């Protein structure tokens, strides 16, 4: 095979692989990305049930209800709006009332989320960044408030 032919074969192979990768990526991106909303945004957007999303805010104090077989129900709030979350499974180590939380799952009604994953913050020093932003949007966040704890 000539140098030119070899180069053409190489370019064709490269285009094939890159093309396959690009179409896979586009397909996956259209199908498997998850949007993040605060409870206020969920209320404002009137999303259809069955939509997959992430919701972040604070666990409303006094709202955590544990029942048998590891079912948990609680309310996520950003101060302005609330969203009920139900979850079956073990909660993460740092899940606490009044603290930041991110729940990922499927919307069951306009104000009810069936969570499949619950994420709490990693460290007592900071909140998940998404939660901070969501709270800031609602004007419920003061800079340094959480950090000031000695």
């Amino acid at each position, binding site marked *: 095979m000539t140098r030119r032919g070899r180069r053409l*074969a190489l370019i064709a192979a490269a285009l094939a692989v890159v093309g396959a990768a690009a179409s*896979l990526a586009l397909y996956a991106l259209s199908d498997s990305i998850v949007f993040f909303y605060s409870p206020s945004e969920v209320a404002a957007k009137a999303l259809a049930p069955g939509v997959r999303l992430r919701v972040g805010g604070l666990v409303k104090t006094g709202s955590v209800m544990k029942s048998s077989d590891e079912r948990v129900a609680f309310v996520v709030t950003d101060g302005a709006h609330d969203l009920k979350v139900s979850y079956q499974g073990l909660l993460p*180590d740092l899940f606490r009332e009044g603290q930041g939380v991110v729940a*990922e799952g499927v919307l069951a009604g306009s104000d009810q989320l069936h969570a499949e994953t619950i994420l709490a913050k990693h*460290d007592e020093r900071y909140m998940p960044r*998404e939660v901070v932003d969501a709270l800031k949007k609602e004007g419920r966040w003061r800079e340094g408030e959480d950090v000031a704890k000695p």
Partner: protein
Amino acid sequence: MIVEIGHFALVLALGAALAQTVVPFWGARVGDNGLMEVGRNAALIQLALIAIAFAALVNAHLTSDFSVLNVAENSHSAVPAIYKISGVWGNHEGSMLLWVLILAIFGALVALFGRALPRSLRADALAVQGLISVAFLAFILLTSNPFERLAPAPFEGRDLNPILQDPGLAVHPPLLYLGYVGFSIVYSFAAAALIEGRIDAAWARFVRPFTLVAWSFLTLGIAAGSFWAYYTLGWGGFWFWDPVENASLMPWLAGTAFLHSVAVMEKRDALKIWTIFLAILAFSFSLLGTFLVRSGVLTSVHAFASDPRRGVFILAILALFIFGSFALFAWRAPMLKQGGLFAPISREGALIVNNLLLTTSCATVLLGTLYPLALEQLTGEKITVGAPFFNLTCGALLLTACFVAPFGFSLAWKRGDLFGVIQRLSLAIIVGAVTAVVGAAWLSSGSLFAPLAIGLAIFIIVGTLIEVVMRARRPGVAPGVALKRALGLPLSLYGAALAHLGLGVTLLGLAGLGFGAETIATLHRGAPERVGPYSITLDSVGERVGPNYKEAVTSMTVRSGERVVAEIAPARRQFAARQMTTTQAGLATLNFGQVYVAIADPTPDGAVPARLYWKPLVTLIWFGAGCMAFGGALSLADRRLRFGAAARAKVVAGSLARPAQ
């Protein structure tokens, strides 16, 4: 006082790094040997100074000197000594200091063992390495000084993040950094080759040992991190496609591609420009990873308290080194001479396919990692790109690469015989296909990944073994002769074979997950709970007090039928200083698989809610990674490929022809 000496040593190290950058570079331009030699000494002095600084910080942590801000924020007098030491890099400032320490170690290695290198190439490589040091030392001194004092000194430290109080912290970051930062030397050599405007097979021979070292450590570092996450986060996952993990995977993918293309360059003098490109790419991804992790743009366990100034500074470093090197590449690469020819069906051809697949999979990881950040900047929408995206894109491409691996390993250089190779591998193909079908039949869930992966894994393992045996034993050769031939085969062949076997073994471990079981249950004392082929019984719940925590410990028995096969003690630890709880999973290794139990807080009546998993073959994931790294080490031990061996031979031959310089 010792702390101030450390700080001062770091400032002096910046001076040494500046000298290492400017003087040898100038010397190489004017052809002055004396000036070029300065680079070597500067590299050694720089290492000594950074080592002093690092030792000073270790000392401050060991003696719990809370007048140092870094110690006060990240340590506690009650922390065990090992976590006092590993706590040095369990925070932003300390981990950056470890970063530059390793950078300096690699620079010093070139200075010490690079005698066989062409003088000007070595001088230029040391200069580029010095420039990287200058940037990061300036970053540490200006934005992240680990030696900052705190007045008045607090009576007690704020404690190391309990998640980090684990032997994993002692192992994972140093290994990862040895890999991550190790690619800096490859980058420096690539930049030096571009500056010199000359590159040949000898260049490939010089950088190969460094590549093998960096790649092996990166493999081990990623595996250690994944194992740590697996047993410490309490839900049995070992890879989360977390942006920070992706940040370490991208240099690994680019580095693996480089490792293969540099072999082509060394043996066949081909693919030069592409190899240089990959060398730059691998370290660029290391830098990008450092930026993602250290700038605070991501929320993650790895992102320590962030400061926007740091992000901008690292971004500037990133831009300088990535754009600088690619500009140099665009300017100089067309001048490099192209080398050997080969047919598309050949080992070179297969390695090109490997490179294409690895780099595109790397690109998909990059896309998935940066897309959410870009979208948020542009539209304000927050999205998550999770495992489904990466499994479909990167996963599919990597599985294809796995499929190509045995063919590439068996094809001959220059012009291969694909039909012959298929014949040779027919046994492996058949065994792999049968395994896949049996796996699919056994697994009723209809998942495609597990049977496919298990078939591929068997194909790789058997195919690699066949190739090694065939190399030693030609038809009609007596067993004794074959054994002799086997001993005579180069170590680098065994290294490559072992790395490919490791790949197969890791894939086997991944496939095993598809055959696992998991359940969530509240365990009552004496009542067994089934998971997979085992049953788990809670025997007792107790309390225990550790040095800086107290824990609720349970003891459980794992039974297979009536037979007791293991005792486990999953626990939950309460750390008072930070008001945090961590999960200590109970693990029992049974035939390469593991029973994994993570508990929640026991209820007042003594019952324990728990997650129970049976993960068949899971340990193979990390065992395979260990094989890959060991394969790299084996290749490194190959005498023929040892640093500068070829160059030395050439010098001897050359000195006969003309008088010594």
